[in-house]
């Protein structure tokens, strides 16, 4: 059965290109230009879905993007709006929300119990026993509406675009096109965004004359250089005219998010036709006038055989003519502007057989067309701060006031003849362009470097547009019977009335209680009827009841489009390719990918302790500090003193925040009189830089210090082990004699033929070691030179894990692991580094008090059972109880000592050497640990690193 009409003068289908597809398991054919819905209708199918709660059969209602009855699954794409999505060849289209099938749906039995499914049904039952709710919930969740997500769906290519047009016009109807044209002619750059597949708005399905006007306007718009996006929607207007646009028509990306910083935004979104509430208003065959006009004029689809038209406006009147031309018999035309009314439809579940009219008349028909008025989709205006006001004479809301950079035209602003609408649009476009000039000037002048902007700021053009009129329209929301208000949520006017009587009688409470307006159309079809029914129930006016605030986005956006390409940076050092080639196991540390080990971390430890090892420590944060006042800055940021650090020496520093909590630590060396190199923890590199700048710029702008971040300008390599001096001597002329270059000293010079290297002697691993900072371009070269030159010394790389083991063997803490968000400096045991006699430093008052307080103490521990390594974060409890006293902050098996060691935060009374700690393991079993005298388990005197 085909319902395709003879060619229509305004049709948008290409009859020369048929497209086979499958609907509901049946082979069908449509044409290029068809929407999925028009193609399904053309193939003689009228049932599109089952409703959410009662599983009632549903047919097309609005035949556009907002049609609540036309959601389908297209291949792996759920919730496709078949009234909007264009048909593509070979797609498999399935109905949603049906079980087991569209034609026979078992859940339709819900209708039989519909009288019990009152609003708030779920709140009032399944209460006892609460333990059974999960079981009910499991069953109920199978009633969830919507399509199915295939979680294996591949992530397709998405992209985003930024644009900075002078004017964005939302809506490409006659007023929007006229606005775009006028703005462009005034010299503005203009982006015109149209939700539908073509420009023209309601003219697209209008008369030949109307379409000619649209075509003429479109030609001018395109000739004027306006950028036109169709099948795209302005989804949101955010602060400072940051405009979100979803482009569904991008040739490559599935959907593209466009972010426009518009100087002015023109909202010409038009009006959305509103359904009418009466008994049987969701029976297939009830359609809005816009739906039948689209079906006939754009897609040449015959919507029915015998129609009743209930018309209260031009659109309804025009649909009568369209229907007649399409060969649909007009059984009756009921005029809503007089006393005519529709009471009910009657028929089967799946089709109308007759329509009951006011005055007791019943007319046989299979199609009922309603044209009862318009909803103003004020979403973008709401987002701009506008609170639209209801006008009962016109039966819709109008804007009450928008910011200077948001202008309204078209149906949202008022009514008029086509010429008047175009004239208003044109005036709006000129105004938008004029304001854009003033706003551009203001923005540019706000930038001092560009202050050369010519002339004084132009006055913001005044709004001297002739306002559009308002055509009277009857208030037609609900007939004398009850019907569906929210089709997607299956909420009826009766439900709303009873919920209001129950006390949910403000629009927000009503919405939450009944879920009316919460569905996929987000109230575009339902809000005004909901408010009207509530007003009626309360005996108030719509203005008194008020309306809900429409939330963004205006139209839904796929998560893929919102995400775009995902830019999550990863950082690697210049030696990374070597690590990969040599079997390093990668580990993610902040943004950095680092070698955790090269196969045998314990062996790497032993090699460092006996021969020499090298580790890539490039992520170490590095800042070059220049200027005569660097010691002042260091004295301020660190708790210890920096007055007497000679050129050529380095010192460890501990950094706290103003609340005394440990923030960072690291080594800083004085390279020359006025140049210093500061190192920070890897994760602190960025924040310490900002911290230093904050103090310099806000508290001490008079200090002469210049901070340059150089973390990735240098590749950093630690050369550690008893044979490290021998190894380094083969690659540098720097005098390595312990008397010439002692522990905690720094030298600069040439290493492996590379100039401008920095080398200092420190000892995180506890061995004689040299930390090299070499220009990053030569990092890999120096690394390879070290391996080559030290082959006979047993040189081998070591990774993060070996370093962690060695630092625990040495009792060094790591900020953020052994300390936490409340750990103040004295806990670390570094009291000698807290110089309270300094005039000032960050956190000084707090640390002065903290020194007197009983704070937790960081101690080194050994397990009584040498083989048990308690996981880090294992809790320390009072014996025989679950009272938490502290925790193991770090733990490893030490290959050097052959036993399990760690660090722990404990209360002061358990901090003395020999104290026994009860440690709870993951299994719940308890073991004991013993507090050690020194932080360092290995070489506590530090003899090995001072050689």
């Amino acid at each position, binding site marked *: 059965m085909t319902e395709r009409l003879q060619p229509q003068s305004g049709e948008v289908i290409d009859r020369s290109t048929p497209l086979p597809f499958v609907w509901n398991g049946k082979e069908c054919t449509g044409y290029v230009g068809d929407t999925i819905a028009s193609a399904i209708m053309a193939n003689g199918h009228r049932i599109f879905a089952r409703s959410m709660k009662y599983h009632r059969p549903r047919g097309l209602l609005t035949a556009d993007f907002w049609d609540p009855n036309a959601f389908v699954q297209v291949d792996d794409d759920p919730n496709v709006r078949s009234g909007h999505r264009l048909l593509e060849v070979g797609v498999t289209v399935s109905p949603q929300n049906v079980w087991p099938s569209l034609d026979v749906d078992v859940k339709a039995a819900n209708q039989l119990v519909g009288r019990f499914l009152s609003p708030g049904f779920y709140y009032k039952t399944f209460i006892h026993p609460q333990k059974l709710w999960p079981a009910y919930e499991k069953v109920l969740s199978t009633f969830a509406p919507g399509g199915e997500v295939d979680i294996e769906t591949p992530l397709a290519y998405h992209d985003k675009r930024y644009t900075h047009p002078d004017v964005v016009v939302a809506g490409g109807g006659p007023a929007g096109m006229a606005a775009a044209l006028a703005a462009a002619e005034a010299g503005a750059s203009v982006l015109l965004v149209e939700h539908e597949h073509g420009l023209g708005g309601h003219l697209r399905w209008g008369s030949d004359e109307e379409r000619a006007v649209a075509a003429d306007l479109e030609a001018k718009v395109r000739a004027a250089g306006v950028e036109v996006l169709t099948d795209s929607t302005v989804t949101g207007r955010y602060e400072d005219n940051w405009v979100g646009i979803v482009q569904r028509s991008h040739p490559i990306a599935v959907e593209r998010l466009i972010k426009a910083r518009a100087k002015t935004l023109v909202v010409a979104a038009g009006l959305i036709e509103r359904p009418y509430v009466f008994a049987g208003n969701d029976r297939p065959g009830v359609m809005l006038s816009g739906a039948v006009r689209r079906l006939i004029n754009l897609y040449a689809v015959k919507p029915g055989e015998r129609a009743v038209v209930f018309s209260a406006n031009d659109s309804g009147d025009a649909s009568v003519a369209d229907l007649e031309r399409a060969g649909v018999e007009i059984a009756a035309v009921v005029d809503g502007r007089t006393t005519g009314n529709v009471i009910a439809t009657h028929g089967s579940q799946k089709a109308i057989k007759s329509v009951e009219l006011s005055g007791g008349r019943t007319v046989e028909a299979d199609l009922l067309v309603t044209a009862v008025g318009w909803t103003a989709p004020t979403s973008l205006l709401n987002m701009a701060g506008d609170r639209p006001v209801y006008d009962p004479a016109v039966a819709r809301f109008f804007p009450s006031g928008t910011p200077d950079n948001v202008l309204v035209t078209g149906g949202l602003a008022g009514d008029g003849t086509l010429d008047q609408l175009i004239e208003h649009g044109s005036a709006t476009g000129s105004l938008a362009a004029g304001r854009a000039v003033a706003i551009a000037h203001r923005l540019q002048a706000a*930038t001092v470097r*560009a202050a050369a902007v010519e002339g004084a700021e132009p006055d913001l053009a005044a709004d001297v547009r002739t306002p559009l009129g308002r055509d009277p329209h009857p208030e037609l929301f609900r007939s004398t019977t009850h019907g569906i208000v929210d089709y997607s949520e299956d909420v009826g006017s009766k439900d709303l009335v009873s919920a209001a009587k129950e006390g949910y009688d403000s629009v927000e409470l009503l919405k939450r209680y009944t879920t009316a307006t919460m569905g996929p159309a987000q109230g575009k079809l339902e809000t005004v009827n909901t408010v009207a029914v509530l007003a009626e129930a309360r005996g108030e006016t719509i203005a008194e009841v008020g309306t809900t605030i429409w939330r963004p986005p205006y139209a839904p956006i796929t998560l893929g489009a919102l995400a775009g390409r995902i830019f999550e940076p990863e950082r690697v050092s210049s030696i990374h390719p070597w690590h990969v080639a040599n079997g390093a196991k990668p580990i993610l540390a902040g943004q950095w990918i680092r070698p955790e080990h090269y196969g045998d971390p314990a062996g790497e430890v032993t090699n460092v302790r006996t021969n020499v090892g090298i580790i890539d420590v490039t992520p170490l944060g590095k800042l070059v500090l220049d200027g005569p006042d660097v010691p002042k800055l260091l004295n301020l940021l660190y708790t210890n003193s920096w007055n007497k650090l000679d050129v050529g020496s380095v010192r460890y520093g501990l950094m706290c925040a103003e609340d005394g909590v440990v923030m960072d630590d690291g080594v800083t060396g004085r390279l020359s009189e006025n140049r210093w190199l500061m190192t920070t923890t890897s*994760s602190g590199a960025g924040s310490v830089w*900002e911290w230093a*700048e*904050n103090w310099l*710029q806000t508290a001490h702008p008079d200090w002469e210090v210049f901070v340059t971040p150089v973390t990735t300008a240098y590749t950093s390599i630690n050369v550690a082990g008893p044979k490290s001096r021998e190894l380094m001597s083969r690659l540098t002329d720097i005098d390595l004699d312990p008397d010439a270059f002692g522990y905690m000293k720094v030298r600069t010079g040439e290493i492996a033929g590379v100039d401008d290297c920095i080398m200092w002697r420190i000892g995180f691993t506890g061995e004689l070691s040299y930390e090299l900072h070499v220009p990053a371009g030569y990092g890999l070269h120096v690394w390879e030179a070290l391996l080559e030159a030290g082959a006979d010394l047993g040189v081998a790389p070591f990774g993060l894990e070996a370093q962690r083991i060695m630092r625990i063997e040495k009792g060094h803490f790591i900020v*953020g692991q052994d300390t936490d968000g409340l750990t103040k400096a004295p806990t670390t045991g570094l009291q000698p580094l807290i110089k309270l006699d300094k005039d000032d430093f960050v956190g000084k008052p707090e640390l002065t008090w903290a020194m007197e307080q009983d704070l937790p103490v960081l101690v080194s521990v050994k397990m009584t059972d040498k083989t048990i390594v308690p996981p880090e974060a294992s809790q320390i409890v009072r014996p025989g109880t679950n009272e938490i006293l502290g925790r193991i902050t770090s733990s490893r098996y030490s290959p050097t000592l052959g036993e399990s060691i760690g660090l722990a935060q404990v209360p002061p009374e358990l901090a003395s050497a020999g104290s026994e700690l009860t440690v709870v393991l993951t299994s719940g079993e308890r073991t004991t640990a013993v507090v050690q005298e020194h932080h360092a388990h290995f070489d506590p005197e530090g003899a090995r690193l001072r050689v």
Partner: protein
Amino acid sequence: MLLVPCPHCGPRNQSDLRLVGATVPRPDPNATTPEEWGDYLYLRDNPADWIEETWYCRAGCRRYFTLTRHQGTNEFRNPPMPGDKVGTATYTTISVGSSGSQPGANIEPHTTGGAS
């Protein structure tokens, strides 16, 4: 996406900057009391009104500066010119959002602004 009027770079997307917090004077560290210091650390004006606050242009000029913003409408008033006074040192313990650049943000149980 708010436009923040950086005095050096001009209006920039909010994501280019970091709000450090309301400006507060730092008490004399050698003469302060725990109460006064506690107020300095934790107490900030929070009106639905104009407020002076420090911003940091982290993706642009890397300068700290003071702006006056309305906490109800997010409107900025009288953007400063370079050379105008900048905020006194400010300290914000509330590490919020995903900026991740709050001092101490690397300290583990302090890494994310809370959420539900």
